[in-house]
């Protein structure tokens, strides 16, 4: 009798395992198709003429309608622009090259300053037993848990009052906060480093800065690199903040967004798709190089307390 029960239990487990495997495969296939099909389709379309794209959307470029059009990428680069107001009261166009430079300045600057704030505050909270550290940690948890909604108008006003509005360095300062989940990531990583290392370095006469920079931070280099990558990618792709706070310094992400709403000659659908892939290329390259770090083991954990 117990053999029968055992066999029934085994069969039930097998059935659940089959069901699991099938549903897993289905979900992943649907997800993969939902991402791959539009991307491949767009990539193919980016090499077509407008007529070819309209009449033969699913076919390879047709010779009688222009064939392969790699020039779309050059056209896309040339026609991406944002009109900005100048200080003298006129207006001028900012083109792709300048927007790329703006993107680099914005993304790199914000990433570095944001990382600095996160790491230094996480370090202070996790490595030193102090009331100050506990207060800061508590504030971070409260700020992360309590959303303050609709402070865009107040922040805009403040940014104009403080002179950070339309100022790339000012925006770095604005983005230099440490109230994100990455604080918790660094906090956990730093807390996990045994105190023995710091204590041994202190005995050898190292100061707090040396201990942090030469001993502790290298031990969490993996987490720092992964977070830096994610933060950089986020700032590179972000177009809302530059759109609102840096109107005279449009980034390439904003340029791409504007392309959709600029009704000018040569701004055809294949050219817009070419622009999309042109913008995506640097980040795709970065992703291929750092793919193992990006699919890392960062866990945001829970917000306790």
């Amino acid at each position, binding site marked *: 009798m117990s053999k029968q029960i055992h066999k029934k239990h085994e069969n039930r*487990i097998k059935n659940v395992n089959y069901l*699991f*495997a099938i549903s*897993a495969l289905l*979900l*992943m296939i649907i*997800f993969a198709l939902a*991402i791959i*099909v*539009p*991307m491949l*389709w767009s990539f193919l379309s980016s090499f077509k003429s407008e007529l070819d794209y309209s009449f033969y*959307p699913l076919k390879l470029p047709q010779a009688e309608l222009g064939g392969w059009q790699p020039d779309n990428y050059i056209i896309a680069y040339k026609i991406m622009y944002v009109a900005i107001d100048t200080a003298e009261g006129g207006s001028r166009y900012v083109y792709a090259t300048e927007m790329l430079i703006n993107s680099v300045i914005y993304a790199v600057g914000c990433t570095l300053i944001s990382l*600095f*704030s996160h790491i*230094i*505050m996480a*370090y202070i909270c996790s490595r030193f*037993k102090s*009331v*100050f550290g506990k207060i*800061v940690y508590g*504030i971070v948890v409260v*700020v992360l848990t*309590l959303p303050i*909604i*609709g*402070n*865009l*108008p*107040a922040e805009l006003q*403040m940014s104009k009052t403080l002179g950070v509005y339309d100022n790339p360095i000012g925006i770095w300062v604005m983005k*230099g*906060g*440490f*109230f994100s989940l990455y604080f918790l990531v660094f906090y956990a990583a730093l807390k996990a480093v045994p105190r023995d290392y710091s204590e041994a370095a202190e005995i050898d006469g190292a*100061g*707090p800065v040396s201990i942090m920079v030469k001993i502790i931070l290298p031990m969490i280099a993996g987490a720092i690199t992964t977070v830096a990558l*994610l933060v950089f*990618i986020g700032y*590179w*792709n972000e177009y*809302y903040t530059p*759109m*609102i706070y840096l109107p005279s310094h449009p980034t390439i*992400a904003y340029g*791409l*967004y504007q392309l959709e709403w600029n009704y000018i000659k040569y701004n055809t659908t294949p050219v*817009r*798709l070419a*622009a*999309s*892939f042109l913008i995506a290329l640097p980040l795709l390259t*970065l992703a291929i190089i750092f793919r193992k770090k990006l*699919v*890392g083991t*960062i*866990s945001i954990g*829970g*917000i306790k307390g």
Partner: protein
Amino acid sequence: MRARNKGLPFFSKKKSETLFMIFGALFPLLQFILFYVCVNGNQIILAFKTYEDSGLAAFAGVDNFKNVIHDMLYDVVMQKALLNSVVFFCASFLSIVLAIFMAFFWWKKVWTSGFIKILALLPNLLSGPVFVMIYRYTVLDFLPGVFNNEALGELLLPPVSMWTILIIGFILGLGPQSILFFGAMNGVSQDVVEYSKIDGFGVRHEFFKLILPAVYPTIISYTVIALAAFFTNYGLVFTFENVSADFSIRTVGYSLFVKIYTAVGYYDYPYAAASGLIFTFITIPFIFGTKYVLEKIGPKEE
């Protein structure tokens, strides 16, 4: 006599560490004071102001709050935006649930999971406008022709376009969330997994008794984040429609954002500030209540 408990120092007992903490924290704390404390203080002040046509500010009492509450109760457009925000929140929560399963499939190393993990990175890597263009100019534009069904042409027209935007947001959000849950699952000890296999437990036991407790704090975090974004969710709608989204597909976050983005001068700022404060006070008890309930009913690790 019992020794007194001296407690922790405010900074550090060592001078060098104290100086390090003070100077290290100087910039981040200044940033916090200016761009969190002062900004939110300014929001409160702004909510009690009104701006004349001349651009001068005047004290408005609670008029802005009255206007917001009036709109919430009687304005059809605001009510529709609130309803749409609820729908977007539900979609976020569903996305969390599906992301857990997807991450579990990766953790179990189901066939193609390695490739899918790479794909899941793409929404993180590519900006919103890129994906919007990709979906708009391929699948959405040509679906009616491919399936010979003209009704599919309504996918880009309101009110159906809201569901289109929702589904695309769902697909794009699934990957990055799954990656984070996958990270949490990797914290489960392999020994525990082996023991459960030896004991004859299957996938269901693994998931509900081992994995779910391990990722539960992450689930709570994500649910809190989704709740916090209830009234601020505007990104994808704005990327799809710019400032001219039809009223039937607007969310509260989108409406407020467009109000400020298209504002000339500060005229609309007080209303938006007052809205923000009211929505904050509505959201906070929900967040704490939800966190409390989730922590109470949550699974415990075995």
